[in-house]
């Protein structure tokens, strides 16, 4: 089958590569661009470990063909850090023990990042609903919810201070 020229913006940088249309976005990111943050946990769009941000939406990159992503602006966990360290969310996950084996964490934080833009002031229940596309086998979610609530509070405080 014919290969195609794929153009992407990934974490702010333009990338151009020759792919088969059927290649999965998650493997393009992991194996061709070396961004191994997004993980594959289920292959069937249930676990969210492969979550990336694509054109301003959270998507499961295991269920997106490379071809479908042509022209997209993609952000992975690798693009979400703060200069020289952890972002507020990343720091909150560490502070509140929102991870154990770490396998779900990149997808979890990438989703949380988008979720807090959709809803900057969530209740605990809204966090649980908004994060329901991401499975974690280790933490029982309690500390993840806590971390996201804490990050929201901190981001809001920073925002208010700036205003």
């Amino acid at each position, binding site marked *: 089958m014919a290969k195609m020229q794929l153009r992407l913006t990934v974490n702010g940088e333009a990338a151009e590569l020759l792919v088969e249309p059927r290649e999965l976005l998650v493997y393009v990111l992991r194996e061709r661009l070396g961004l191994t943050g997004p993980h594959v946990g289920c292959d069937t769009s249930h676990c969210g470990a492969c979550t990336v941000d694509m054109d301003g939406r959270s998507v499961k990159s295991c269920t997106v063909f490379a071809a479908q992503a042509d022209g997209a602006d993609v952000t992975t966990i690798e693009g979400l850090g703060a200069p020289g360290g952890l972002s507020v969310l990343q720091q909150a996950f560490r502070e509140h023990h929102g991870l154990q*084996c770490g396998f779900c964490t990149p997808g979890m934080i990438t989703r949380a990042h988008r979720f807090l833009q959709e809803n900057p002031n969530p209740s605990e229940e809204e966090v649980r609903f908004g994060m329901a596309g991401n499975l974690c086998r280790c933490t029982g979610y309690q500390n993840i919810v806590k971390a996201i609530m804490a990050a929201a509070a901190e981001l809001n405080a920073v925002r208010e201070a700036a205003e």
Partner: protein
Amino acid sequence: MNEMAPISREERVEKLKGLGCSRKRVEDVRFTQGKGNYVDDLKLPGMLHGDFVRSPYAHARVKSVDKSAALALPGVVAVLTAEDLAPLNLHWMPTLAGDKQMVLADGKVLFQGQEVAFVVASDRYVAADAVDLVVVDYEELPVVTDPFKALQPDAPVLREDLQGRTSGAHGDRRHHNHIFLWEAGDKAATDEVIASADVVAEEMVYYHRTHPCPLETCGCVASMDTVNGKLTVHGTFQAPHVVRTVASLLSGIEEHKIRVISPDIGGGFGNKVGVYPGYVCSIVASIVTGRPVKWIEDRMENLTATAFARDYWMKGKIAATKDGRITGLSCHVTADHGAFDACADPSKFPAGFFHICTGSYDIPVAHVGVDGVYTNKAPGGVAYRCSFRVTEAAYFIERMIEVLAIELGMDAAELRAKNFIRKEQFPYHSALGWEYDSGDYHTAWDKALKAVGYADLRKEQAERVEAFRRGETRKLIGIGLTHFTEIVGAGPVKNCDILGMGMFDSCEIRIHPTGSAVARLGTISQGQGHATTFAQILASEIGLPADSITVEEGDTDTAPYGLGTYGSRSTPVAGAATAMAGRKIRAKAQMIAAYLLEVHDGDLEWDVDRFVVKGAPERFKTMKEIAFASYNQAIPGVEPGLEAVSYYDPPNMTYPFGAYVCVMEIDVDTGVHEIRQFYALDDCGTRINPMVIEGQVHGGLTEALAIAMGQEIAYDEIGNVKTGTLMDFFLPTAWETPHYTTDFTETPSPHHPIGAKGVGESPNVGGVPAFSNAVHDAFRPFGLRQSHMPHDHWRIWKIARDLGLHG
């Protein structure tokens, strides 16, 4: 000479970040940035990808395998079948349970998803295409998925390779599908007590088949360096040294020429203890092709072919006096092991530690018998976030207690309290042969009941039942109680081994001249946070800050031999080894300090991070100073350097325990339930890092929730797996998961160097009966005694229907 600005003792303690503090995890800095290093992240030059052709049938003869079309596909490098492995004698491999297992189908297949051929290709896309091109001719055979039917005289013969063999690794086989009968306790005495008891409750308790399903599946990258003759295998291994030994025994490559590396592991929960055909095939393929070969299973393969857990049919009898004193317990288990006996238990315990099933109770006589049976299901039988078969045991006894309470017309909390082993009875010898090291069950129990307001809950429940009877509500309340005792930390080498390797563990410490250190262990973290907590143990032992101690695990070239991480053994065994190695360091440090301070060893005492001359607190040497001195001073009678190794053979297991209460609301019409409250009190002895303990409890409880309320590996009549994706295999999201309240008591283990017992698996062991008992308890007023898990909507609905609650 000494530190410029002296700081207080408290500040010095705090600076260490040692035992008991909620130190933030060092691992998290890279994990939160997506910089973990999991096996599928590895990319080696020239690496090939392996993929399996798997059987669509549960039982069939393999008449032929035609690989020509696959081999003709550009990019395909090899297709391996049993025929190719046979000359190397690798078409079968030994299991950890004394059985053997096909690596690739040898003449027949015995479960759906069994490995038939291994395709090796340039990338994962070509490999997947080639799998479709391998043509296998099957002849279907009769299937048996029910262990009771498997033992009927006319049942199909599953293991033709064992035909005529009347005994196996664990004694006699009485039927062609029988594996072993394993017994503990005194049968005659137990039968007698039961026969003459005031009250006997009898019940079949089924703990269904499920799966550990860590978020990362299993996989490996095998890389044979043909120039140097060295094999390196990266993989998802909970026991890397054991894998090295097995790889050496199987391949004939000398053990020093094999390096096994467990990188970061995305959860294990028992799934990653065993040795799977994928590992063997990747190694062979790498040897054959001279190129690295990667194999990563997908989720469906993971759920259908590797490492199921449980599947125990437990028939119990519990005897008691009229006033509720338990006098005896018997249990017969029919254990469905699937097509091969690949349980990951210590060799001498084919039913694991199931005989901890007298639980937290002082039961004078008991007997258990476990029959292992072959069926057309996947092999496994792993300890899914529990010590070997301990979850089954805890579920069994906690259900039997509830059933006995019904029989006696007694409150189940009161019945438990009446029969707990009392504090003064420890160390306690159980009727089934264990020596419980320590416990204080009544204190924990009272604390738990008080915390949840038990009496008020019962009152509310009774009122709800009345309202239900009056037709005012369709919701019932269930109060699920559990008091469990775990047995972890396998284990004493005198009776615990895996493939002949004693179940000790190890730690090697090297202190650098400037006062930092590296500690290497034989265990491997899969999220438990060893890099954080083991450094804390060591910080307290040797007085160097945890932040200056690197913990390394998982590389057999550098780490000392250890049996790995599962069965909550890391803290009890490797944690002890760490403390003991630390003590060796300190002993040597004391000699150095004595020399430097020109006093006798005995004139010094240890104080947080330094040796101080007794009675002269201004004269001391810090560990940091001692470390430097050990490398730059010639000290008479003392070798230079500061290093130690400890191999720790635990004198006994440890026995963590806990008291859990679950309050559940159940809609009798839809079977939909809501967890209103969950209280978990854990006693894991000395608490190394409360934050990590709490996280372990949340996670274990959520796995318990999943198992009790919906998670199963289900088969249809002809052996098709019905729950092969995460659509049907229940893993709760944040939405279905309740908020947990955690609590603790602290009863240190008397025989462990720091008194720690381990906690990772308690919440699963105790959580499952707590959730299940809540469901049962809701329907107890209407006459329910026993209903099998998982309690998903339709099964709860069925309970209500069978009790006539739908009108």
